[in-house]
Structures are given as C-alpha cells and as structure tokens.
C-alpha cells in the first residue's frame, strides 16, 4: 500500500508505531479509574443512592484492570521480554513506572474487594463442599471470623483502602496522560494539561460505563433500575464531562492563540486527517449532544418518568463512551499522523479487522472484563443487597425511591 502522504515527512516517519492497541490501553485504564471513582462516591463520599452498585463498580474496576496490560503486551515487538520492565526498570523512564503504578493499584483493588466480599467468601466456604470449599477456604485465607466486630473492622479498612485508592486511581490514570504529555518531541502531546485531560475523561468514561452496565445488569437479572441511582450518576457525569470538554477546548484555543511553529501543522491535522474524529465526533456529536441530554436529566429528571430519564442517561452515556474513545484516538493516532519535520502529514491509519493489533483483538480484549464480571457474579454475587431488597418488596417498580438498605 502506498501511503497518501502530504508535504515533507522525515523518511522514517511514514510508519504508525502506536496502533489501535495503544488507543485501547488508556481507554481501558480510564474505565478502571472511572469505575473506581464511582465506587468511592459510595464507599467514602457517602452517596448512599449509589448502594446498588457499590460492589459492582469496584469489581468492574478490577475486571478492566485485569485486562489493561493485554493491549500493551500484544503491541510489544517482543512480548516475551515484557517482564524486563519489572526486573530492569530504567529509573529515568516514565514508562518504567508503569509496573509500580499498576501493581500498587491492583494490590489496593484486590485488598479492597477481598474485604468487601470477605463475609460472602467465608459463608460460601462454609456452605460448599469439595473443590469449591477448598478454593474458597483459601480465598478466605483460612480466616473465618465474621462476627459483627470483625465486619465493622472490615468496613473501616474498606474506607481507608478507598481513601488510598482514590489518589492511586487518579495517579494511575494521570500517569497514563503523563506518558504522552511529557514527550517534548511531539507538540500535539507535550502539554502539562495532558494528564489532567486524561484523568477527567477517564472519570467520564467510567461513570458512563457504570450507568450502562448497571442498567444492563439489572435488565439481565430482572431487577428494577432505581431512578435515584441513575440520576446521581447522571449529574456526576454531567459535571465531569463539562470539566473534560472545557479542558479539551482550552488546550486547542491556547495552541491556536499562541500560534507557535507547531500550530501550523496541528491546524492542518485537525482540519484534514482528524476533522471527523476530532471536530465531528469528539466536539460536536460527542460533547454537545450529551451535554444537552444530561442537562435535561439533571434539571427535569424528577419530573419525567423514570423510563424516559433512564433512556436519556443511557443515550448520553453511550455517546460519551464514544467521545472518550475518539479523544484517545485523536491523541494517540493524531500525534503520529504528522511528521516531526512539522512539514507533512501521513496517510490515515486504518486498523485491519484481523490484524495482530487490529479491530478483532481489540474487541476480544474489551469483552474480557465482561466475562470476568459474569464469572465473578457466578461465585460472589455483587447485587445481593438489591436482590434482597427486591424480595422484601422494598424496591418494586422502576419509579421506586431507594429503600434504606442494610448494605
């Protein structure tokens, strides 16, 4: 294939090295951080109306975290050497910190999930037989104290872990932005705003994903979707999307107003190669429409039928998931579409469906967290309190107000 080049490119600059996989990586870690923020809104910030997804969002964060490294490993020229990052890290490398940041956060997540589900693990270990009993007794670390006092201690530990987890999640994702923002060679990446934009858009994608996944899970389990739970997430989503889009636009305005050497090529990039994914998808469809939809939900939500509110919130969430993906695309791919000569543009990057780093592997990686969630749910139910409240008749129709839960 002869690439459609425009202007003068440095001869080595005709290849795209960071593929769809590297778009996927910040997207997935963004979902990790965002889902964790949702769970911390419940566990630390006392948003009690999020009780149905307090556990679910935590496990979702873990599920996304479990696959976050897969796009990276698939991308490496030598995946069999991936462990070099852990055993011979270079102290000056931003990327070498990944092992540390990733493992630290994974450890906090696993600990927190363990403490949140400890009672269920112990009960399962006691009530089952054979191999399952063996596995769960080890999962319980052979500690079976679930007295009220022990559970109160668990609860305190969960609060502390979440409190540590929030800055860790923010750090993990801000760090992903830093990987791009700290490269002075690339004027489209090199801005101190990059980690901040990544972080805020991560929260947007995480809340949007949790809204949709909550609705899907309730539909699958035949449980009611609570109006107040969706309304709370929708208002947080609205706040974070406003912050994100503001930052994204501010960055462009600053670049354009400064009119530095790089702006000449970045302007061409945005109006030609990225006109669809940046202007149409990221800014107009992806930002303006969900802004209006969520505005309606936030201002008029209580006056409309729960069903209408849920549809509007789901539509806004779906669009915002695409918006965040296109933002990742525009950063990762966009940053490689112009040559470092700042005089020329590469041809568009078009990932093939069956390529090693193409669309099919990306879809497989994105579907894995859902497999993990289904398996997790099979052994340790995440919606037990919702099921119990429903069985007791405390929550019934879609319009039901949230019942006080013992959870």
């Amino acid at each position, binding site marked *: 294939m002869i690439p459609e080049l425009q202007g003068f490119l440095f001869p080595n600059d005709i290849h795209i090295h960071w593929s769809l996989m590297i778009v996927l990586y910040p997207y997935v870690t963004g979902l990790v951080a965002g889902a964790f923020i949702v769970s911390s809104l419940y566990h630390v910030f006392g948003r009690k109306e999020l009780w149905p997804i307090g556990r679910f969002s935590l496990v979702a964060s873990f599920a996304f975290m479990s696959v976050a490294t897969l796009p990276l490993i698939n991308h490496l020229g030598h995946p069999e050497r991936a462990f070099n990052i852990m055993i*011979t890290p270079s102290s000056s490398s931003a990327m070498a910190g990944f092992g540390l940041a990733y493992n630290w956060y994974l450890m906090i997540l696993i600990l927190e999930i363990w403490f949140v589900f400890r009672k269920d693990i112990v009960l399962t270990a006691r009530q089952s037989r054979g191999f399952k009993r063996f596995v769960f007794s080890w999962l319980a670390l052979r500690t079976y104290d679930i007295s009220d006092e022990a559970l109160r201690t668990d609860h305190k530990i969960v609060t502390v872990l979440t409190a540590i987890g929030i800055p860790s999640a923010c750090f993990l994702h801000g760090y992903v932005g830093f990987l791009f923002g700290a490269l002075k060679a690339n004027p489209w990446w090199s801005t101190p705003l990059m980690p901040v934009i990544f972080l805020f858009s991560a929260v947007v994608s995480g809340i949007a994903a949790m809204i949709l996944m909550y609705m899907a899970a309730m539909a699958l389990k035949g449980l009611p979707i609570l109006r107040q739970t969706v309304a709370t997430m929708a208002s947080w989503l609205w706040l974070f999307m406003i912050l994100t889009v503001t930052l994204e636009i501010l960055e462009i305005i600053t670049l354009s107003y400064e009119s530095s050497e790089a702006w000449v090529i970045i302007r061409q990039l945005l109006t030609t190669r990225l006109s669809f994914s940046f202007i149409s998808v990221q800014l107009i469809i992806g930002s303006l429409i969900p802004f209006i939809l969520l505005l309606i939900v936030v201002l008029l939500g209580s006056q409309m039928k729960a069903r209408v509110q849920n549809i509007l919130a789901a539509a806004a969430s779906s669009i915002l998931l695409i918006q965040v993906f296109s933002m990742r695309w525009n950063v990762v791919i966009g940053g490689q579409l112009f040559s470092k000569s700042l005089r020329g543009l590469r041809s568009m990057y078009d990932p093939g469906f069956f390529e090693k780093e193409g669309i099919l592997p990306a879809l497989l990686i994105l579907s894995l967290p859902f497999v993990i969630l289904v398996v997790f749910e099979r052994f340790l139910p995440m919606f037990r309190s919702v099921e119990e409240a429903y069985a007791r008749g405390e929550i019934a129709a879609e319009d039901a107000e949230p019942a006080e839960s013992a959870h």
Partner: protein
Amino acid sequence: MDNVSRREFLGKAALAAGGCAVFVLLGPGQAVRAAHPVGEGGSPLGDYDWEQHRYAYLIDAQKCIGCGMCVKACKAENKVPDGNFRTWIERYEISEDGEAEVDSPNGGLNGFEENVTHVKIAKAFFVPKTCNHCAAAPCVQVCPVGATYRTKDGVVLVDPKHCVGCGYCIQACPYAVRFLNPETRTADKCTLCYHRVTKGLKPACVAACPVGARQLADMKDQFDPVRKRIITERVAVLQPELLTEPQCFYLALDKEVR
C-alpha cells in the same frame, strides 16, 4: 477448618514478600547487568579504552552534493531494511518568496532528480541527517528497560537483545532517526558504526562521502582537526530549543532545517 492466627498470617505474608524482594534484587535483573559490565575503567571491547574517546560528528551542509553515497554505504554496512533509514539526505529549495520545498526521495539513497518547478528558486541545498547522539538523549531517558544507553565515548546505542520493542524511544526522538526494525522487532538507529570506530575506522557514511561533508571528531583528541573546527567555528545543532545537547554539529545550517 483450622483458623490461622493473625500473627501467623502476617509472619507468612512477610516471608513471601521478602522472597519476592530477593528475587527482584538478585534475580534475572542482576544477571542481565552482570552480562554487560560497564564503567570502572573497564571496557567490554578488549584493548579499546572508551574512557580515552568521546565522539562527535560534523556536517558541513555547504559541501553536500546529495549524491546518496552515504545512505548507500550505511545501508550496505549495517543491513538497514528497505524503507527505513539510519541516515538520509534532505533537499531544500527555497523560492524568492521564502517558500521552502523539501524532499528526500527514498532518503536520497539514489541521489536526487531535478525538480521541475515554475517558482524561481533563490537558494537550494542538501542537508544530511543522522542520529545526533544527544548528550541528553530523550530516547535514553524514556526507554523503560534501559536497552537504549549512551556509551562512555558518547554514542547512543540500542541493545537489541534487551529491547522490548515498545516504540517509546521512537516517539521520544525529536529528529525521527529511530525506527522499529521489521526483522528484529526492536528499535534501530545509527550506531555511528560503533563496530568500526572502536577499531579506529571511520563510520561508513564518513568514509563514503566524496566531498568530506561528513566528518567524525574525537573530542578527547587534542590534535583532531575536526574537533578543532567544532570548537572554533560557528556551529549549529538541530532543534536546540529542546536542550537535547546534540553531538552532531552543522556548519551552514539554514533556519528552514529542523
């Protein structure tokens, strides 16, 4: 089921954590470091003492005629895969209005054909490019595994046996001198023909240049004439604002070149 006491549990956990730490500190990482001893005056290159040399590169852009011999020589010497370049030549044609037209067909491998253009060319020149072997190299800074490093004699190299092929160095290089070698799937770039210079030979591109536009300097050799030119004449480097401290110096560098 027997209950494990908290003390017992913590004890075992500490033991496991200690085991992991020992593995990381004394494990394969150390083995890799031991296989590549550097510093302490010793050199992995036998008689050659890398403490006695520090290389720099001088390009006299005024002299380059765009013949492409350097690109050919580099390709032959280093088996550079097609479509990738350890060195290349750029041609600049600047009109009377100041509009610059730049090209580098196949990196200048086969020289340049005359451009048919209607604008009046005020000046035209060739600029050879290669790795700048920066003293503050961004590629060395970002390499997550330390596979890219700067030798004591001032050459930036890649260890292809240790490189994971993540491509971060390629993104970090402002001069686009790096590429991912499609055969080895590792980062690749100009080595300053390290295998030659450590034997007292010139890099292939320097040896092949018919007009002396490319020259190698040893900055630790008091009597090196190229060193003398670098320290006494008015030299420029590419993208100096990035503070990468390039060790490839240019004479007669035009403002259009970055």
